[in-house]
């Protein structure tokens, strides 16, 4: 009860800041901060894409209120997150992945989508490992992240590789984006001074293989037995940029 009261206070404080700012000189400064805010805040489970989320979130704080672990907080002035929106810092308090997802249930607008019914389907961010400072990658037998991970052996697996400089194998943790929920329990648990595994917004770290390529051993294909050639004489596969080629060709000897 007392805890809830404290949280209410902070929520009101955050909302109050936003309100107070409307009348003050710092309004323009806040606007700048809003504009500069990085799209990399870790949002509660079920949050829509950042643009859609910001459009729908009414900064009511109900998700924060209903989070049983105090994980969620509302951003205040000075945070690098748009003011009044919910986020969390896993090194302080990670998301403990409540099966009933109370934050989502509390959300009145669908900014945290009601379609998220299984917390394991949440994608709050992606854990990434600094392999230079990860003790496991150096060969120490740590792998705390792997053991602490709520989806261990799915979201974090351990690979065994030879360690060239001794007789011992390396036990290296590997994060898999298709299962990692971004809860941050690994980041919280990481025993190094600064966490060597951290949860980061997907768009900050995740690459993408070209649409023109498939990994040979992952995508199964068979030779098409009855190939249908392209019959249409319609538009060329490539729009010829003959003039560009011509300019180059006619510009003289190199």
């Amino acid at each position: 009860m007392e805890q809830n009261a404290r949280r209410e206070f902070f929520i009101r404080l955050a909302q109050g800041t936003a309100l107070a700012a409307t009348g003050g000189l710092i309004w323009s400064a806040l606007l700048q901060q809003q504009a500069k805010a990085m799209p990399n805040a870790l949002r509660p489970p079920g949050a829509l894409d950042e643009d859609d989320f910001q459009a729908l979130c009414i900064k009511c704080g109900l998700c924060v209120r209903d989070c049983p672990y105090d994980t969620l907080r509302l951003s205040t002035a000075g945070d690098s997150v748009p003011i009044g929106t919910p986020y969390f810092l896993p090194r302080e308090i990670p998301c403990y992945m409540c099966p009933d997802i109370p934050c989502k249930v509390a959300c009145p607008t669908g900014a945290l989508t009601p379609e998220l019914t299984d917390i394991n389907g949440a994608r709050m961010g992606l854990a990434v490992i600094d392999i230079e400072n990860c003790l496991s990658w150096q060969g120490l037998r740590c792998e705390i992240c792997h053991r602490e991970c709520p989806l261990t052996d799915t979201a974090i697996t351990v690979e065994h590789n030879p360690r060239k400089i001794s007789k011992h194998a390396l036990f290296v943790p590997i994060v898999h984006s298709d299962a990692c929920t971004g809860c941050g329990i690994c980041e919280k648990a990481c025993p190094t001074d600064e966490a060597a595994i951290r949860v980061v917004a997907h768009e900050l770290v995740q690459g993408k293989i070209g649409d023109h390529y498939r990994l040979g051993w992952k995508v199964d294909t068979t030779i098409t037995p009855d190939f249908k050639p392209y019959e249409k004489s319609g538009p060329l596969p490539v729009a010829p940029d003959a003039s560009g080629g011509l300019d180059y060709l006619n510009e003289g000897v190199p």
Partner: protein
Amino acid sequence: MEITRREFLKSSIAATTAATVGMPLIQGAQAASEDFEADWQWDKGVCRFCGTGCGIMVATKKGRIVATKGDPDAPVNRGLNCIKGYFNGKIQYGKDRLTQPLMRMTDGKFDKKGKFTPVSWEQAFDEMERQFRKAYAEKGPAGVAVFGSGQYTIQEGYASAKLMKAGFRSNNIDPNARHCMASAVVGFIQTFGIDEPAGNYDDIEHTDTVVSWGANMAECHPILWSRVADRRLSSDDVKIVNLSTYANETSNIADTEILFKPGTDLAIWNYIAREIIKRDAVNHDFVDKHCVFATGPYDIGYGMRNTDKYAFDAEKDIMAKELEVTLTAEEAIAQRRKTGEKVKQNNTKKPVKHWLITYEDFKEALDPYTLDFVSQLAKGDPDESLDDFRAKLKLLADLYIDKGRKVVSFWTMGFNQHYRGSWINEQAYMVHLLLGKQSMPGNGAFSLTGQPSACGTAREVGTFAHRLPADMVVMNPKHRARSEQIWKLPPRTINPKVGSHITKIMRDLEDGQVKFAWVQVNNPFQATANANHWLKAAREMDNFIVVSDPYPTISAKVSDLILPSAMIFEKWGGYGNAERRTQMWREQVPPPGQARSDVWQAMEFAKRFRLKDVWGEQMVPGLEAEGFESGKLPDVLDKAREMGYSPDDTLYDVLFATPENRKFKWPDKVAKGHDNHTVKAGALDWFPEKALYQEYVQFGRGHEHDLADFDVYYRDDVRGLKWPVVDGKETEWRFNEKYDPYVKKGSGFEFYGKALKELPTGDLDKPTSKEKTSLAGKAKIFFRPYAAPPEQPDDNYDLWMCTGRVLEHWHTGTMTRRVPELHRAVPTALFYMHPKDAEDRGLKRKDVAMVESRRGKVQAVVETQGRDDPPRGYTFIAFFDEGVLVNKLVPDITCPMSKETDFKKCAVKVRKA
């Protein structure tokens, strides 16, 4: 390829749900595209780029390549690709793809000084025919030429070679593969009497020791190198040595890196051979049974012009060495002569002649190559101690000699592009044969190739100035007769005089000997050394140059007529890789616009000529051969009539659409529904790619070069086959009884190649008797001395410059520079130099430098750190970048035996631009 928002949304409920729960778009898109891919059609193919020969799978939709993947069933690469291979699906979609013929015109007519203007194929061939006839009338078969390619499909190379050799009776067809592996070929033919490696890539998994000589495999054969790396990681007993003139990526997993001075690799091999003898490690049983010893003349020049009539003033001092050389102190020791001795180069015309010597002579010749002598001569890095370098050389000898160790030596352009490239190839076999470590799993000297079909087409089909298919040569009357028989030509149709090699074709353009040249599947005006001469010759001499290419290249730019070509998966074709593996693919998509296959182009051009135009008497200056009048090819039209030909038959009828070939009907069930635009464009009822291939395989069958039937390579369960394919079985290791059906039973090993197997006997300096001994079944162990590079840094041009490749770009970048991602990664060729050398010249990293040699200058961006790390005194630059035409700098010095250019040794000076 882009998935539109709409398609994305409708693709599947699962994907939509995933997206709404905050799953990153990447995963959503992946789920969507899997559904989207349902109507993709997949087929097997081969990577377009290097000589490794990785298998890929190609997906198409609506006439477009939508994706590729590494083929998990391909034994070469098991589903992997390098970053060039990753972009196989994008190379055909550059914005400036040529889709119609372009000709230099003024006022609607061809004009050498005119501007490129779109024309029809009809107009293009009309002018081409007119220009060809003019050149042919004036200069005969020697006045026309084809710049061929190691990237020709088998059928393209075969069609072009047949058109030139059988049709136009000209041997002036030579591929860019001359720049790439001609020295390897000479090494093979001289040593074994037959071309191409004995082993295969599985040697990597079988060996304990990989020695890479003058190869940056890590970048230039990336997927093979990952096999080597895997082998290295499997056990600490596996050792890797990288010999190079500068530190490169291949050093990264090497246990030992040996940086040597350019050209001293010749001395290092001799040191190893001397050690083998000194340590009594010669495998006498193997050597006595299977080998003989041989040597040849040293005064063979450097493959330059023997006149400086066309030379720039600054290059005359180097060119004078073609006539006479003053021996350095080291050469004097290495060649048992006196320092400062002036040696006339008397054997420039017959550099390949050689004779048998005794084992005692061989030993004596190696005697000067002590560790003391070789380590002082060869140490390349001025900042390395002599003791360290000595220790490395000794370790290298230890690794080779260790009886318990298997050794594979790999090399590429560092050996082949060498002023003594043929010698150094032979030296590799010298060491492997002395040890008996050859032609068995995990043991062997293995020459890697650079291009995807340097082996399969340039060498096996024989698109060289001296070659015919299946290792035959135009100089040999029996070979000509056999070819004339298969090709159904009257006797003495084929020209017995060797044509111009690729660099000589350039020289012929410069001195007006060649008036018509057709560039096919290569970019010689960027890739040939001493380019300033040739660029000028193309534009200022009276000649007509045709370039067939998918893109506007430097060569296209200096040509007179440009023909738009179909690219790899826009036509049917086959390639042969460095392990003798022949692989084929089907046409997957139509070529854009009016682009057409090179086979179609050759056949259409052939329709323009009748037998009476070409098979009459022809002047060939310098032709001297038994059965031929001096300087003349005979009129063979009468004989042709007897054979049932009419003088009015076209070359197309006689060479391509023969009654036998027309029996290969189109459509064919091997196509599985795939199209053939060559058939469509020519309105044919026959299948030219299959017919030409089936005609071609007759040359090799029963002659140690057996290939399987066309259809076999298209079977779903086949991923290429290593020739000779005998009774349906491929050959893993040649010359070894266990694996090779051509080896006599009970012999163990037999080096059965037939070429150059009758030799006179002599001493170290000369043949002493004319009587020839047969060496049937044996390999030759050559003694070849150290000789100094003709161009070396001096006070004025004070740095070595080496050229080569980077992983990201293929050759002259005409395809890979049109892939935006590859261009973004490596937009320009960087000039790698030692930081101290840069500092001494007032240069900082990323400064633009003026790099100048005796032959020209270019500007390039300086790099003092990164992938290549030259010692003081050395520099490296890649040749892919047409913005940095580095071949303007490089001398056209060649190995006199192979005529392959030494692109690795050029003296330059560098200053701030």
